[in-house]
């Protein structure tokens, strides 16, 4: 029967100097860094794409739809490979940067771009649904007041639309954190990568995977609480009920 060895985290790596828990901590750092950077891209691009899909310009709507379909219908793993192996071949400056850069930097940039744009398509879908769920009268009232289309969005539709979108954004944030583990396929040493590495070095797979599981649970619970606070802070009194408990 397997004997648990929870002390494994405080043993030294074969090379010496570092202990295994430091490996896990550096993995957590990369997971958080990739998720945070990708989240910023996803929120920015996703809001933009989601918004243009609700405008009355057919070409902008088509562009937005094409964007969402493109990123939703290719597996994340394949997109990761495309960003790391294929796209740089078509952009010579990017290629020459990747060849000369630290491999970790290249993996990080590719993972962030991949996860950011992948998530942007999902956020765009939520933002579009949020804006379209607003009563038509809001847009019409804005226009009757003489606002231009950008002003209608800036002052009337987006402030309400974003508040409606916060709960689905919370689950997209958690998905993003989970999806960041796919970056291990291009060699980025994030949390899951490090957990497997620890298992392979020491054969304490059970302990390593348990640690990773607990850390993922803690990270997603924290993200969940954080979003709940934002939801409560931004709630419009009398319009959207309560906020998350």
């Amino acid at each position, binding site marked *: 029967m397997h004997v648990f060895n929870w002390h494994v985290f405080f043993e030294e790596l074969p090379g010496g100097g570092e202990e295994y828990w430091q490996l896990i901590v550096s993995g957590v750092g990369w997971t958080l860094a990739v998720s945070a950077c990708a989240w910023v891209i996803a929120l920015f691009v996703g809001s933009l794409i989601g918004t243009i899909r609700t405008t009355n310009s057919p070409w902008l709507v088509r562009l937005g739809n094409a964007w969402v379909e493109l990123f939703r219908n290719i597996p994340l793993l394949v997109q990761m490979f495309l960003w790391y192996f*294929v796209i740089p071949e078509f952009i010579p400056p990017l290629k020459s940067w990747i060849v000369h850069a630290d491999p970790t930097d290249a993996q990080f940039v590719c993972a962030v771009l991949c996860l950011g744009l992948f998530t942007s398509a999902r956020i765009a879908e939520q933002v579009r649904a949020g804006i379209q769920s607003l009563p038509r009268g809001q847009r019409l009232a804005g226009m009757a007041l003489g606002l231009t289309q950008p002003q209608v969005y800036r002052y009337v539709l987006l402030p309400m639309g974003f508040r409606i979108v916060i709960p689905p954004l919370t689950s997209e944030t958690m998905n993003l954190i989970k999806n960041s583990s796919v970056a291990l396929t291009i060699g980025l040493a994030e949390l899951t990568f490090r957990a497997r590495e620890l298992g392979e070095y020491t054969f304490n797979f059970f302990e390593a995977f348990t640690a990773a599981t607990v850390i993922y649970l803690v990270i997603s619970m924290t993200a969940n609480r954080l979003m709940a606070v934002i939801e409560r802070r931004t709630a419009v009194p009398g319009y959207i009920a309560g906020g998350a408990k």
Partner: protein
Amino acid sequence: MHLDFGVVARSLPYLWKGFEYTVQLTAIAGLGGLFFGTLLALGRLSSLRWLAFVASAYVNLMRSIPLVLVIFWFFFLMPQVFQAMTGAERPVQIGAERTAIITFIMFEAAYFCEIMRAGIQSIPKGQVHSAYALGLTYGQAMRKVILPQAFRNMIPVLLTQTIILFQDTSLVYVISATDFVGAASKIAQRDGRLIEMYLFVAAVYFVLCYTLSFMVKRLQKKIAVIR
């Protein structure tokens, strides 16, 4: 740069085998996940508190950790579990392909559970009461009254989840199973043709998933009219 898509044509038989495995994995995991997911949903909605607790704990755990980590967990645990079950002397290796099938059934069960739970809860309470009033047992009420309606209401969501599953199965790459992506990447690395192979794989997935989700959308409209 010189692109040579001949490599795709030359390796089509091998790629097709990988693709067959992907479809097989999706189908088995989809059906198995639906079956166990429905059981889990009944468990979560059960009036037995311990059963509801165990079912929700399982579902919430599965849904909060990355699929890649779930795959690693099962890949590591499965041989040990089989060893304990069969009393063998060493951990029983069943291979990446079979491990992947069990993993995806167990993983998808958690996601299908939430869909079926929503489906069951969308059925008006009166249906349950009238089933009991007619003298049906719990099993009969579920099998003959509630679940058929819940399935029907949830068909578009179930199909959408299956399309997501179809994409997610590509992650068996991390345990070196030879699915469609696995086959393509093995050829790509052997022949040094990463660009052509990955573009081809992306195009195939895109065309299939786009077509399927388009069909689901049309089905959704049709069902919505009938209801």
